[in-house]
């Protein structure tokens, strides 16, 4: 008997996950107390020291804590302690804003570069130098000049997501098949109309691929940026729990960051499929 490939893959996935949890559980089991302590001393010490509890939480600890967070994701206990839902909301909001600004700048500019070989050549050295700079390296400069940490975080998102979009747009526009443009020319289509009705649809799949790369990078960077500037966001949550050496909460945050990142990527992937055309 044969099962579909999909079913078999799912079985393997689940088996891998179970094995991972099992190893994790075994690796983080408590060992017996190694030293004897007087009761009053033991009362002042943590579980790691008294019961040999591993500093790394096991899957059961993480699961219990996760359930606790999921039960009330939107609580607000003051400026430094908010629910995970609110923190994720702040992060997504920042990424959205910075990303939107990047789209507004990168796509028209990319069009210009792609359509004009002169500008393309002139701007190229700048892009080549600016592109490989780690977005976080901009952080001190942004803090110093903008003088506002939340705008600085948005600026960092902007600067990291602008390059892939810019390059992909320019490449997509420049690579539109000459025949199509020539056909448009013979039909005496104006430049603006040509850009929107011929080049844009033709370059759309490449542009969206650039946007998909950008959103991935933006989401990677926001966590680090928020750890630096603090205040709100999932990155701040990681930092705050790291302060308390609560590895359980850090693991939960990592899990959520992964899930949100995947969702953002899937949304862009869906858009890409919508504009893809068979040649």
């Amino acid at each position, binding site marked *: 008997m044969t099962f579909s490939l999909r079913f078999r893959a799912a079985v393997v996935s689940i088996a891998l996950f179970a094995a991972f949890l099992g190893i994790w559980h075994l690796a983080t089991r408590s060992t017996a107390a190694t030293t004897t302590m007087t009761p009053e001393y033991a009362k002042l010490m943590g579980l790691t020291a008294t019961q040999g509890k591993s500093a790394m939480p096991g899957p059961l600890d993480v699961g219990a804590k996760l359930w606790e967070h999921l039960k009330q994701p939107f609580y607000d206990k003051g400026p430094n302690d908010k629910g995970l839902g609110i923190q994720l909301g702040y992060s997504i909001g920042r990424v959205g804003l910075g990303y939107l600004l990047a789209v507004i700048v990168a796509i028209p500019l990319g069009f210009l570069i792609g359509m004009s070989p002169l500008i393309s050549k002139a701007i190229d050295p700048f892009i080549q130098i600016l592109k490989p700079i780690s977005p976080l390296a901009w952080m001190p400069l942004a803090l110093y000049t903008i003088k506002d940490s939340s705008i600085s975080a948005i600026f960092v998102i902007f600067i990291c997501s602008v390059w892939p979009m810019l390059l992909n747009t320019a490449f997509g526009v420049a690579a539109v098949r000459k025949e199509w443009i020539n056909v448009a020319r013979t039909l005496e289509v104006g430049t603006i109309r040509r850009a929107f009705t011929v080049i844009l649809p033709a370059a759309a799949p490449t542009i969206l691929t650039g946007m998909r790369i950008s959103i991935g990078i933006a989401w990677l960077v926001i966590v680090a940026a928020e750890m630096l500037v603090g205040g709100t966001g999932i990155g701040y949550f990681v930092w705050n729990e790291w*302060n308390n050496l609560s590895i359980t909460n850090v693991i939960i945050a990592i899990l959520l960051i992964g899930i949100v990142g995947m969702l953002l990527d899937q949304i862009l992937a869906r858009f890409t499929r919508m504009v893809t055309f068979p040649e």
Partner: protein
Amino acid sequence: MSTFDNPFDPDRRLRAGGCSCGQHVSEAEHEHAALALRCEPQPSEDKRYEGVVASAVMRAMFPKDAARRAFLKSVGASTALAAISQFFPLQTATEVFAQGGVPEKKDLKVGFIPITCATPIIMAAPLGFYSKHGLNVEVVKTAGWAVIRDKTINKEYDAAHMLAPMPIAISLGLGANAIPFTVPAIENINGQGITLAMKHKDKRNPKDWKGMKFAIPFDYSMHNYLLRYYLAEHGLDSDTDVQLRSVPPPEMVANLRADNIDGFLAPDNICQRAIYDGVGFMHILSKEIWDGHPCCSFAASREFITNSPNSFAALTRAIVDATAYASKAENRKQIAEAIAPANYINAPVTVLEQVLTGTYADGLGGVKTDARRVDFDPFPWQSFAVWMLTQMKRWGQIKGDVDYKAVAEQVYLATDTAKVMKEMGLTPPTTSYKSFAVMGKTFDPAKPDDYLASFKIRKAS
């Protein structure tokens, strides 16, 4: 005249005599009292303020002591109080006085680093000290010292928790643009410690520490100067014999566990946290290096003081008030519970309690008690600033000459804080310089250059 006297006591003088504050019989006794700085509050703040106001009223009504005495003797103190209260609203006047001027800006943001040094700044929020002084303050947790500096300079924060040497460094333009900063209040004294990794539990003599790696929270910190001082007294040059690294306090415990560092001189709850997690042990408390050393400060830019003097005064009053409350041992447990949640320090209550009450596990199986492990005392002694400047020069952070007194007096606002404390009915010291001993060696704030020259181990300048 003193703010503590009963103005309705006929035998009291209302004008100064005896000593400069009028509270003591002689100048000698006054100085003795001033040396032991006290910020214990009076029975209740309201009573204190009432006394201040009533004294002022009595003084205005009876400019001559003889006349007042005659009046009080003939009618009796309680009748006099009742009589005056009838035509002068002491109660209302007291309330108005306690609030000071109307704050220009009521909604303030104050940044802090999550360590127990910030206790007064943090606890003033949940325990209502800010609101008592007519302010609506949001205390914002911040990622590190450089970030808190930048955010305060950028005016995202109106005031902030900083390491005591930082406002001096900022004012001098060390590691930042020179911007005049001020310290209206010291947060805590003592409350730090040298924690070593468990594997060094037999290496208790610092002479054996050659080649070890230590973490400090920031270059411009008391931790840096105290650790270097301590090592130098044991013959180790901190620039050549050991490695010092700036590590944000939260990462210290993890680094100690990972064996990246051998120990640290760190702010508390970090030291105790390392013990709590079984990673390290307490070698010595910083108090054993210099008992009564300042650690963190409450800092604001001069611009903020100029633009919003009333807000600043109210903020200073709230901090002084909170510090006075924190200095009392019986309040410490309540404070530990108030500042432990995730919104504030975010640490286990047991750890904070051990730090604040001074009954703590030392990491080697013993329980130790030291009620002054951490203490709170708001007065910004200018001699503290002079000492820090000598150490900045000693370790090459300041090159060339420095006008110790001018810098200290510009940054550490001893006079203004003394005034605020007096208005609140507390007894500030009458001088802003005091001598103290660091590891048995006396520091004379009048002769900083001689002090500096007396150290054998120092960076050649």
